[in-house]
């Protein structure tokens, strides 16, 4: 699984960070950082949930 964020859509709502903090982090500058673009299998359910819950549908999962 590869995590791709469309930063034109992302508005740093930080929902993804709540669900999968191992992969997503919104920092003090209010920008989202993807900490792990190829998360381990154990994280896939969380990352899928994060993609679903993104209010901007800015997270795409490939593969």
């Amino acid at each position: 699984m590869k995590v791709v964020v469309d930063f034109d859509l992302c508005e740093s709502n930080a929902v993804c960070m709540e669900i999968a903090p191992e992969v997503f982090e919104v920092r003090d500058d209010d920008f989202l950082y993807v900490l792990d673009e190829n998360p381990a299998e154990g994280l896939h359910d969380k990352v899928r949930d994060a993609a679903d819950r993104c209010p901007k549908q800015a997270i795409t999962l490939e593969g």
Partner: protein
Amino acid sequence: MSDNGAPRIVIVGASLAGVHAAQAIRRSGADAEIVLIGDEADHPYDRPPLSKQYLGGDWDAEKLLLRPSKDPDALGVEWRLGTDAVGLDLEARTVRTLSMDDGPDEVGFDGLVIATGARARRLPDTDGLSDVHVVRSKADADRLRAAVADRGGPIAVIGAGFIGGEVAATFRSAGHDVTMIEAAEAPLTRVLDAEAGMMIAERHRVEGVEVRLGVGVDGFEIDDHGDHQHVRGVRLADGSTVEARTVVVGIGAIPNTEWLGGSGLEIDNGVRADATCLAAPGVVVAGDVANWDHPRYGRPMRVEQWDNGVDQGGYAGRRILADLAGEPIDPFDPVPWFWSDQYDWKIQFAGIAGRGREIIHGDPAEGRFAQLYLDEGGAPCGLLAVNRPRHAIKGRQFLTSAASADEIRDALA
């Protein structure tokens, strides 16, 4: 049952909650046939942009589509779009439908998910007035966009809730003259507190929106052209008139439960359900139409929020599978969360408002702050964040784990 013996799950309502229910069932790997019934002809789309990017013309219809709509076959459901559910027979386990193209039909189910949402509340006696709009569906937004392109402003927005505020911000940002009218003394008093509501009102005033608070609407000034009528203005209860060529009404929503009349389900501000969203054996509710016993708050709650549509939709999918398998499931016990974008303000709110409140971070005058709400016993119950997304989300986590006010103050100062 379907032909191969797998249970058939019928989901009524093909918007956010219904789609996520279907997705959760598919992801579980369960062998089930899914029929997804939706009244609109379009594949499911996302509603929040209807009052923002789509209304403003920045987004096209393609961009609105929910992800499963981009590859509808991949969801693994039988789509029945353009189809109204018109009745439910719990004993016979059937949903009666009426399709635009195929007429009446009956669909049998083993499990049923009710996710029929809510519709915009309208002002009385405005049915024949084409200049008076609501914003709930893509068709509504299309009509409003076309009307404003055709007739222009000034625009009156009735109701200063989230829809009203976002519509006012969108049109004001596009350069139109906008008046926002609210019957309460401040915007959003039912969701936030009056002071926070006034901060938002002030944000609109700074942008040049005329904000009229504490005054109701009496009626409309009409130009009668014989075969059609045009609005010229909005008459207010204080005797004044607001000039307007286009009017947008955002005064709340009504759950779509009429089709369930006589079904035996309890209808009270939506469909009543237990703490696991079960309304009857084999019948689960989700989204704007669901009024379930919320464990955390100890009372029935109906939540008209995007995130709840996703969350409760997914839960409903798992819930119905557990019911069919005779397995237990934890109750549905979320801390609600929503956002609203108005101008450069990203407003986020987690939990519910309480009487006590304090600013724990930032300064409202600078448009970046977090405010904590406390319930009657002094325990944290809500967190408002403006342009502080991390605070909103961390606040939600703290509320979920029932953290103390001091813990929250220390972490989010």
